[in-house]
């Protein structure tokens, strides 16, 4: 004799659209509460497949189904089960179906699923040699082509997906691969007005810098995009004089010669300082940093800084540069 709850769950797969609609709305409501989540978790093996099937349906059922899944995926065990049943692939397929209408929710679902290593592997498609990296490329393209100008910015949360996956070496290698040019595209989003996008960019760059030892060229050779993203947030609020900016590359120098919005996000500042630290740990990275007058920028930025965590991050880079100074100026031997 099925309980009421079991009946409800059964209705998710009902042939009648009105019944499934009613059922999915109720289930979505349940995912909003602790108790509801617990009860549903018991029946995960039935609930999850049923909900994922509804994702392919019309918006009136796919939307609540997606919302329910997003809520459910906040639980690690349920997230793992979802990854195991191929939820990443399902989400990606529906995401790129025209007019699926639930893009934002699907992206948020992927954010939660990529909190798990298995979810990351699934998104990277590491097992499939031909398709390897295809999902990531698609997401990056969508991230970069859309913007926060549109009313709901459905791909905004790709920023968080990128931060999540870049915790794994395989993802970092993919993003740094110069032939695909993914990091170059992502860095441009740094100018966005959306704090989420900005944070995603700085977090992703910082993670990628963990590859600095083996992949320094792939970071340094996109310098015209990299340095502005790393240096502007920690350059302080003053206008720089010509003596200083003349030693900087154009993109950085011209931005620092004018009035600009004060930087307000300490998390981003700490992240870019950590990225700079990782780069300057490498000989060639230090050299490149000196060549763009980086240390001077940090000096000026530090003067105005108040946040203790950010100050600590400045100091860490500073002491690394001091310890290793004296070998950084470009050496030119003239010979006729």
């Amino acid at each position: 004799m099925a309980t009421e709850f079991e009946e409800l769950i059964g209705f998710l797969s009902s042939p009648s659209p009105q019944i499934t609609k009613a059922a999915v709305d109720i289930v979505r409501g349940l995912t909003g509460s602790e108790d509801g989540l617990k009860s549903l978790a018991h029946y995960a093996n039935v609930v999850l497949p049923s909900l994922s099937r509804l994702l392919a349906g019309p918006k009136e059922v796919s939307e609540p189904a997606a919302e329910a899944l997003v809520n459910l995926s906040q639980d690690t065990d349920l997230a793992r089960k979802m990854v195991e049943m191929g939820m990443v692939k399902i989400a990606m397929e529906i995401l790129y179906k025209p007019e699926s209408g639930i893009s934002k929710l699907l992206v948020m679902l992927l954010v939660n699923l990529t909190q798990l290593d298995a979810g990351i592997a699934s998104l990277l498609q590491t097992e499939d040699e031909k398709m390897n990296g295809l999902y990531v490329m698609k997401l990056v393209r969508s991230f970069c082509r859309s913007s926060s100008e549109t009313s709901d910015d459905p791909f905004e949360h790709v920023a968080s997906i990128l931060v999540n996956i870049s915790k794994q070496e395989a993802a970092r290698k993919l993003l740094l691969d110069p032939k695909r040019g993914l990091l170059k595209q992502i860095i441009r989003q740094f100018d966005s007005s959306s704090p989420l996008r900005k944070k995603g960019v700085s977090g992703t760059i910082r993670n990628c810098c963990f590859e600095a030892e083996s992949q320094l060229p792939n970071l340094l050779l996109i310098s015209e995009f990299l340095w502005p993203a790393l240096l502007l947030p920690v350059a302080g609020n003053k206008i720089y004089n010509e003596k200083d900016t003349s030693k900087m590359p154009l993109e950085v120098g011209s931005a620092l010669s004018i009035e600009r919005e004060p930087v307000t996000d300490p998390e981003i500042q700490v992240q870019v300082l950590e990225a700079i630290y990782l780069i300057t740990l490498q000989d060639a990275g230090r050299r490149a940093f000196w060549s763009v007058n980086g240390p001077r920028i940090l000096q000026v930025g530090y003067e105005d800084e108040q946040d203790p965590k950010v100050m600590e991050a400045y100091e860490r880079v500073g002491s690394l540069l001091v310890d290793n100074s004296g070998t950084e100026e470009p050496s030119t031997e003239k010979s006729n």
Partner: protein
Amino acid sequence: MALWMETGSEPTTQSEKDDLEAIEALKHSTALELKENGNQYVKMGKKHYSDAIDCYTRAINQKVLSDSEQSILFSNRAHVNLLLGNYRRALMDAEEAIKLCPTNVKALYRAAKASLSLNLLVEVKSFCEKGLEHDPNNKELKKLAEEIDLRRLEHEQREAQVSRAVAGAKDLVSAIEDRGLKIGKAMFQELTGLRKPTLDNNNILHWPVLLLYAEVMSSDFIEDFCETDMFSAHLDMMFSDTCPPLPWDKENNYTRESIELYYEAGSGVCLSKSKLLRYLLDGTAASHVESIDVDEKDATEGLNYGISAGEGSKWVKVGEKRTLHDVLKEPNFIIPGIPVFYVVSKRSSFYKEFKAGKWVPPP
């Protein structure tokens, strides 16, 4: 006399047995005599070596001597073959001698010498070692063994140098390809010599860069221009206030503010991967290497880019605030072996002529 016995028939009578014994004894003394003759012939010098061989051979063919005596015969013949330069035959004889008597140190020595001449270094070593087992103080064997060790070491070191050079050049080729740079035939080699780009331990490229003062065709070098450096930094150093003016620049036209840098666009043909590898190996330990494995799947052999020199070359100005990498990766820049930049001064009267495209670099 029962000299020729039919096959299958055994000597049965005592007299038949006696006869056979007598024959054996005769053969035995013949063999020994032949050996003595052979030894004498050797002492008589080069002209008689083939006679010596003949004697030893006949002695061997008597097939009556004991193994140890037979071994000496083979060993002696090996010795003469060595003297005659028949190293293969000497080795075979020596090996036969060793087979018959493994403690025959002379034979082992001769086998080692023959192997040495045949460049069979491993065999030389093993014969020496066997010989030294039986005669640990044998000076000649010791000397040979040492010589082999030395030769082996030298060989290995050379091989290591060569493979290092090849690996280094291959890394450079990869780095150049990864950056999408185009390298063409080297120009001005009388000025550049054997200078090559290098990769530092962070895999960043460093280039030697040639600066040509077009007006007088004088040259300067930037020995180490890191690809992440900006041009302005190097120019600041070269034309700083403390630097003396260029000796030929009588009017002091070439100052930091007045100079401009240009590169020649689209001149020449891109080297194929294997030609590029050859070029990079030129002047290194591996410059003689015959064939190198090169994956030519993205062959860019002989791609001709637009304008060729002399046809009104296109001069592209270099923005000083750009990094070397940025400029080198320009699609119309074919690096002539190593990068070449032309320096002109806005203040000089030569400037107009240059900008109008009327000047062409001399061949």
